């Protein structure tokens, strides 16, 4: 077993023990796992492939609304649920809650993935700023549209079925969502760790470095771009479905299609940790979450100023992110030692 495997196992065990060591912070740590998923998946396009996207929040919001709507709609008329304040009128039995939740989460992953595949061909044909702006538009438009749909509560939002009565307390609920978000994060991480070691990972990097060259070498770049986008949409959609359940209340622009907060945070976290690396988004999200929670606790009123300063510090002192900084200091740990003589050697033919 190499060092990285041991590290992953140790962190995994810590992740399992955390809710019992810090029971008061269960929900906060669950949010961290979701943030890591958002950063890891943002990095597929933003880091590994070099396509800055502002649109991932689209999949997050769709996953969230879809999951909640299915949880309700499988058993009650959705329009009456949203119109009447939900759980005050209708009560989910435990069976209904878990069945609805299971189907909802599945759809929260699959439907955004299908949408990504359908819109991918058009959007991923755009390059650079055009791609960035187009994805930004998608996220904003989705929030506006969701705010106009009465069925899902329009601008008022809707509630998600609460934890069913009669099975455990709020602690059990918190543990349930803690472990689900933890498992989602672990699967996302392990999947990407594996995928980046295959042809897929190498080709994303080739697209990042020179897409024209990749095409000239016969690589069907569009296929790889779409597959990457579908993977992102799948995991982000599930994260949205879970998040909706953890928050309990969905609103279009601040919770679901939260481009101005989560949509920006996922980019900041990745850049802070180091774009285009596997561990960068994990480290970035963790450091970011700790700072942010600290700011919200200790600098209330000034939290956004503190956050802004943090961003400036990142960009100025760690332009390549924390991982990039570590990599530069200890290149041998990344198998990157380059012999000086090789570097200087002249080519002979």
């Amino acid at each position, binding site marked *: 077993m190499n060092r990285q495997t041991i590290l992953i196992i140790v962190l995994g065990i810590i992740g399992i023990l955390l809710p019992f060591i810090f029971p008061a912070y269960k929900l906060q740590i669950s949010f961290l796992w979701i943030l890591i998923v958002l950063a890891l998946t943002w990095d597929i396009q933003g880091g590994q492939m070099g396509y800055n996207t502002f649109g991932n929040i689209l999949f997050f919001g769709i996953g969230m609304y879809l999951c909640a709507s299915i949880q309700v709609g499988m058993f009650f008329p959705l329009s009456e649920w949203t119109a009447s304040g939900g759980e005050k009128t209708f009560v989910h039995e435990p069976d209904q809650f878990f069945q609805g939740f299971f189907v909802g989460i599945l759809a929260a992953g699959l439907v955004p993935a299908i949408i990504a595949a359908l819109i991918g061909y058009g959007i991923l044909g755009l390059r650079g700023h055009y791609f960035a702006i187009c994805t930004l538009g998608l996220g904003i438009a989705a929030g506006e549209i969701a705010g106009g749909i009465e069925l899902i509560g329009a601008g008022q939002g809707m509630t998600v079925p609460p934890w069913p009565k009669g099975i455990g307390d709020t602690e059990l609920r918190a543990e349930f969502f803690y472990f689900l978000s933890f498992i989602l994060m672990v699967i996302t991480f392990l999947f990407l760790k594996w995928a980046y070691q295959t042809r897929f990972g190498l080709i994303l990097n080739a697209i990042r470095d020179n897409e024209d060259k990749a095409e*000239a070498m016969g690589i069907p770049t569009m296929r790889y771009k779409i597959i990457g986008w579908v993977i992102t949409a799948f995991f982000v959609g599930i994260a949205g479905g879970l998040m909706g359940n953890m928050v309990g209340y969905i609103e279009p622009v601040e919770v679901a299609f939260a481009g101005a907060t989560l949509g920006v945070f996922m980019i900041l976290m990745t850049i802070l940790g180091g774009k285009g690396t596997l561990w960068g988004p994990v480290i970035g999200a963790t450091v970011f979450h700790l700072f942010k929670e600290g700011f919200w606790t200790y600098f209330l009123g000034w939290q956004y100023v503190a956050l802004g300063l943090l961003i400036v510090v990142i960009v100025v002192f760690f332009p390549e992110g924390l991982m990039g900084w570590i990599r530069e200091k200890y290149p041998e740990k990344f198998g990157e030692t380059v012999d000086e003589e090789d570097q200087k050697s002249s080519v002979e*033919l």
Partner: protein
Amino acid sequence: MVAILELNQVYKSFGGIKANQNISLEVEQGSIVGLIGPNGSGKTTLFNSIVGTHPIDSGSIKFNDKEVSELPVPVIAKLGLLRTFQQTRVYGKLNCIDNMVVSHKPTKDGLFSVFSVMPPELTEKAEKLLEFVGLYRKRKLLAGDLSFGQQKLLEMAMALMNEPKMLLLDEPTAGINPTLINGIIDRLIRVNGEFGITLLVIEHNMRVVMGLAQRIFCLAHGEMLAEGSPENIRDDQRVIDAYLGVQ
């Protein structure tokens, strides 16, 4: 003669600039053919037309008897028609080995090969080819850290890794240390002879093209000025005038 590449009355203009006019040429399977002409005469444009970088205005381009003028770039490349770039293009943040490995053309290129693991033999093959172009000691360096000339050599090796049937080389010796030029001529002749790859080479250096090509086409102002054996071209007054007139 079996033509591997056949151009018939190809036209391409950019706004008012007629970059290629009425270009017809044939490249014989297994040969080395030179494409010369003063700067701006439309050589690179012709390469771009052949490999599908831009649509042509009219005319026909056939590769192995198959019309390719409407096909997208990756599809033409997968047929076995590759080009290298005048201004080098490599994957700058990947090391040379990875640049090579990603250039390998998978035999089965279906959906399932997307997540296939790169077999270790590819690294061996990559190292051999890097050795062939003199870059073995540079194999662990990032491609972006190589000099311009070294990147040209890397591009050549990447193309070989892909095992094309025909290779279009855009000024392979430009920017390369003059002491290496004979080595490159030798390598290109071996690529043609040992690997069986047909070569169409844009070349500015007359000595190189005369030593390499069996047949030469000369462009001027976007039109085909002359074609023939190296001796014919060297003595052709129109070719001499075209070069002297520009430089």
